[in-house]
């Protein structure tokens, strides 16, 4: 993963900060990254209706920012970080909306809100094992076991302290293992 080539940048732009991929390079990156990010946003965010928005916003931010020249792996980490931060923002917006609607929070956490069935546009697939995890647990497991991100990256993406990732990941994994046991789901049978 670490030996992936650098994302090709436009020749017409000056060297250093402020360079973006040219359109062909962007399309190639998009073809590789967008389906993965969409899957992540749908399954971890739990809101199929927001996943498209979040992924599009991720790429817009990537294009309008000034990313330095990055390897493919660094670019993916960068995109996942933006997507994760955007999902966290959306969960916070949901919390504000609920307050404005006059529904008391009653000590609920952001995780509780986003995980609540019927919170709006919940992906039907998520009504199974994944839906029983909190969004943060889903994100932790996905980033570590699907994307293979190191704990340091996961901590940065989720705004956690690096040492706590190991413990939280362990708890999330135990929880999912128990859920899979109860549901009688074997590996490869989601």
């Amino acid at each position, binding site marked *: 993963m670490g030996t992936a080539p650098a994302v090709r940048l436009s020749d017409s732009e000056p060297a250093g900060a402020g360079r973006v991929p040219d359109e062909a390079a962007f399309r190639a990156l998009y073809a590789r990254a967008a389906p*993965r990010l969409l899957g992540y946003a749908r399954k971890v965010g739990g809101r199929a209706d927001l996943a498209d928005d979040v992924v599009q916003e991720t790429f817009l931010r990537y294009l309008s920012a000034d990313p330095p020249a990055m390897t493919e792996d660094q670019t993916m980490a960068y995109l996942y970080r933006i997507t994760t931060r955007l999902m966290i923002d959306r969960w916070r917006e949901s919390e504000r909306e609920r307050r404005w609607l006059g529904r008391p929070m009653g000590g609920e956490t952001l995780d509780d809100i986003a995980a609540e069935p019927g919170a709006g546009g919940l992906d039907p697939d998520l009504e199974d094992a994944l839906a029983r995890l909190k969004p943060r647990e889903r994100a932790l497991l996905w980033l570590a076991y699907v994307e*293979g991100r190191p704990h340091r990256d996961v901590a940065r993406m989720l705004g956690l302290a690096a040492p706590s990732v190991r413990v939280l990941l362990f708890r999330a994994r135990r929880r999912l293992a128990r859920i899979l046991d109860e549901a009688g789901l074997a590996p490869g049978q989601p």
Partner: protein
Amino acid sequence: MRLACRHEPEVARALREARWTDELASHAASCASCREAARVAAWLQAVALGAEADAAPADPGRLWSRGVLAREVVRRQRLARRAARPVLWFQRTAAVVAGAATVAWIATSGTEIRGLTAFIVNDASTGIASPWSLGLVAGAVLALALAAGAAALDRLDRP
């Protein structure tokens, strides 16, 4: 079960890339933590493959156009901020000079200030204020107000 085994990331990677070494495979078979990690990782990776296959991302061409536009806006904002830097520097310097001048004037013109106070309260019997005292004070106040206003506007302009 231990909190976590240090080989878990390798196990997840081996599953993802379908590349197991004999050593890692035999470790995973004997380590409860790695076995559980392998089971969960395999399930999640299958979910991810399904989600990726179902994904229908938006048209990249449209996204590219919007991205180029957004980038241009950011670039122009940056240029505008850079162009406004000397003006900002001048405003800040003017505010500092006006403030220093006011303080210096107050420190060196005790009699004048007393006279001005008397002039303002219309006590003609003790008033020795000269018209330029009032002008100086008014000028200083005006300069400070302008500097404060400019600073406030500058703050509002910032993205």
